[in-house]
C-alpha cells in the first residue's frame, strides 16, 4: 500500500459503540454455558493453541469480542479454531471453551447462512 512506503499512516478511529453492538450472543452463551463468566483473560488458552502457532488467532481475544458484541470480528476469527481442546485443559478456571466455540459458530452460521 502506498502509505507503507512512508512508514506511517493515519490512525483509523478506534472506538467501540456499545450501544449499537448486539450482545445477544453473549447472553445466549451465558445462559447455555455459564462458565463463560469466570474467564479472567489470563491468555493460557492462546498460549497453548496450535492454531495460534500458525496464525494470529487468540481465543482470549474472541472472548473479548463476544463480551463486547463485535460480531464481525468474531465471525472473522472463530472459524480458524480446530476444536482440539488444548485450551479447555490449559484453562486454570475451567472455562468450557469448546462448547463456547461450538455454540458461537452455530449461532453465527444460523444467522448468516
Amino acid at each position: 500500500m502506498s502509505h507503507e512506503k512512508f512508514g506511517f499512516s493515519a490512525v483509523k478511529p478506534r472506538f467501540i459503540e456499545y450501544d449499537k453492538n448486539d450482545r445477544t450472543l453473549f447472553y445466549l452463551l451465558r445462559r447455555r454455558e455459564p462458565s463463560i463468566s469466570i474467564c479472567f483473560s489470563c491468555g493460557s488458552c492462546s498460549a497453548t493453541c496450535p492454531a495460534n502457532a500458525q496464525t494470529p488467532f487468540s481465543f482470549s481475544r474472541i472472548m473479548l469480542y463476544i463480551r463486547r458484541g463485535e460480531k464481525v470480528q468474531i465471525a472473522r476469527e472463530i472459524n480458524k479454531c480446530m476444536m482440539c481442546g488444548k485450551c479447555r485443559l490449559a484453562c486454570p478456571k475451567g472455562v468450557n471453551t469448546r462448547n463456547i466455540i461450538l455454540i458461537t459458530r452455530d449461532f453465527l452460521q444460523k444467522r448468516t447462512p
Partner: protein
Amino acid sequence: MNYHPFVLPFTIGLYGLILVLTFLFARWMISMPKEEKRKLRRYVFSFRIFGIIGEVIMEVLLHRRIFRKNALLGYMHMSIAFGWFLLIVGGTVESKMHSHHAFNEPWIPIFYKYFVHNSDDFRYAETFAFIMDFLLLVVLSGVGLALYKRIRSRIFGMKKTTRQLLPDKVAIGALWLIFPLRLAAESITSALYGNGGFLTGSLGEVISAAVSHEMLAQVELNLWWAYSIALFTFFALLPFTRYMHIPTEAFHIALRKAGLKPQKSGDGMTRFQTHSCSRCGVCIDSCQLNAHLKRSQMLPVSYFFGERTHQPDNKQVYDCLMCGKCTVACPVGLDINTVRQNRRSLMSGVNGGEYSYLPAINKEKQTQVLYFAGCMTHLNPAIKKSMENLLNAAGVNWFFLDKEETICCGRPMKLSGKTGDAEKLMKWNREKIMSYHPEILVTSCPICYKTFAEDYNLPIKVMHHSQYLRILIETGKLKPRKTGQTFSYHDPCDLGRLSGEYEDPRFVVRSVGSITLIKETREKALCCGSSLAHFHGSDLDRVILAEEALKVLCQGNPDKLVTACPLCLKAFNGVSEIPVADIATVVEEALE
C-alpha cells in the same frame, strides 16, 4: 366348525399389525442410501444369507447377548419370546397335521383347543398336548419372573430400570394376561371335553370336579373372548410402544449382519436402530454420567426415544462422553455412538472452517517411522520425551513430525459434528504425513490413533505407541527389566472399547511389572471423564468422574497407575494419590 366370532379381535389385530409393519419397513428400506441398498443386495443374493439367518436365530430367538448380561434376565426374556414363538410354531404344525391340509384358517393354531375337542383319530395328539402344555408352562414361568422383576430388578443384574409410559403399561398388561388367559381357557375347555395335556388336563379335572358343567360352558366362551381381546390389545398397541422392538429387531440384526450402518440422521438404518431399542434400561447402569453426576437426558433409552418421536434437544446429543460403554452393554447391539454422531453432524452441520493459514507442504523427506505426538501429548511433555528416548534407544530411523508445525488430527472437530471442517484438517494432515513417505505412523494419543486408522485411509501402517513399543520389545530392540512394581492399567476408551486394542498395552506393562486385577476392565473399563466428545462437562464434573474411575482402578492397591492416553493421564494426574504415568514413561524408566 372352524369359526366363532371371538376369533375376530385376534384376526383383525394380526392383519392390521402386519399391514402397518409392512408399510413402515418398506418406507425405511426405500429411504436407505443407494450404496447401502447395493451392499444389502450383494449380501442377500449370495451364500452369506445363511450367516444372516443363523445370526437372526441366535439373537432374535435365543438372545445370546441378554444371557451374557445376566442368566436370569436371559431366561426371563427367552422363555417369553422363544416360548411364545414355539407355541405358535407348535400350534401351526399341530393344526396342519391334524387337518391334513397345508392351509387352514389363521386363527386355528391359536385357538386350537377350542375348535378341536376330539382328536382320537390323530396319532400324535398326546405328544402335541404335552409339548404345548410344556411350552405354556415355560412362558408362564417367564411371565412370573417378569412380574417379580417389577418388584426387585436387582437379581436380574439391573440396579436401575426405566419407567413405563401409559401405552407401555397397557401393552405389558395385555402381554402378561395373554398366557394366564390361555391357560384358563384351555383348562376349562379341557374340563368340558377332556382334551388337555399334563397341565391344562389336570387343571381341567380339578375344575370339572368343583364346578358344574352349565357354568363352565358359560365361562369357557368368555375366557376365549378375553384371550382374543388381550391379543388384539397387544397387537394394536405394539407399533406405538417399546414392543415395536420385537418385529424391528429381527430386521435390524439381519441388516447389521450385512454390514449396514447408520449413514446419516433419519435414514433407514437409523430408523431401524431407534425402533429396535426395547427401552429395557440395561444401558442406564453402564452410564457414568448417570451413575456419578445423576444426569439422565443423554441416556440411550431417553435419547433414542427423542430420536424416535421428535427432534432430540441439544443436551441429549452433546452431553455425552461417547465412551461407548452403553454400546457394549446394549443387549440389542445398537450402534449408539454412530447414531449420536450422525445427529451431531445434522445439528451442527454448517461447516465454515477457515484453514487457509495452514502452511503449504512442499518438503519431501524419507523416513521409516513417523512419530505424531498429538495435541494432548504436548500438554504432557513427559510422554513426548520418553518416546524420543525410547525411539533413539531402539535405534529406529524415525522423525518427529511435531518438530515442524503440526495441527490437530481432526477427530475433536468431527466429534463436534462439523464433519466437513474435520475433513479439511484431515486432508492437510494426510498430505503432510505422506510427504515423509513413512512405513509406520506412530502416535501417542488414542484419539489421533482412532481417526488415523479409521478416517484417513492412509496407505501405511498406523500404530498407537503401545503397539509399536510391543514390537520393539518383542524384536529385542528395547530390553526393559522387570522392576517388580504392580501397575493398574487403565483402558482409554478410544484405544480399548472403540478401537479394540486391549492386549498390546498390557503386554508392554507386563514386560516391566505386573498388572493388578480389577473388576471393571477391558470393554467394561471406565472413562476418565475428560472425553473430548463431552461438551457439557464442567471441571467439577471431570474431577468427580475421574475420582470415581480411580476408586475402581485402585482396587488392587497398585504402586502406579498406567494409562496409554495423554488425556486420561491429565485427568487422573490431578486427583490421584498414587503416581500416574504413561506406558512410554514406565518403559523408559525400566530400560537397562
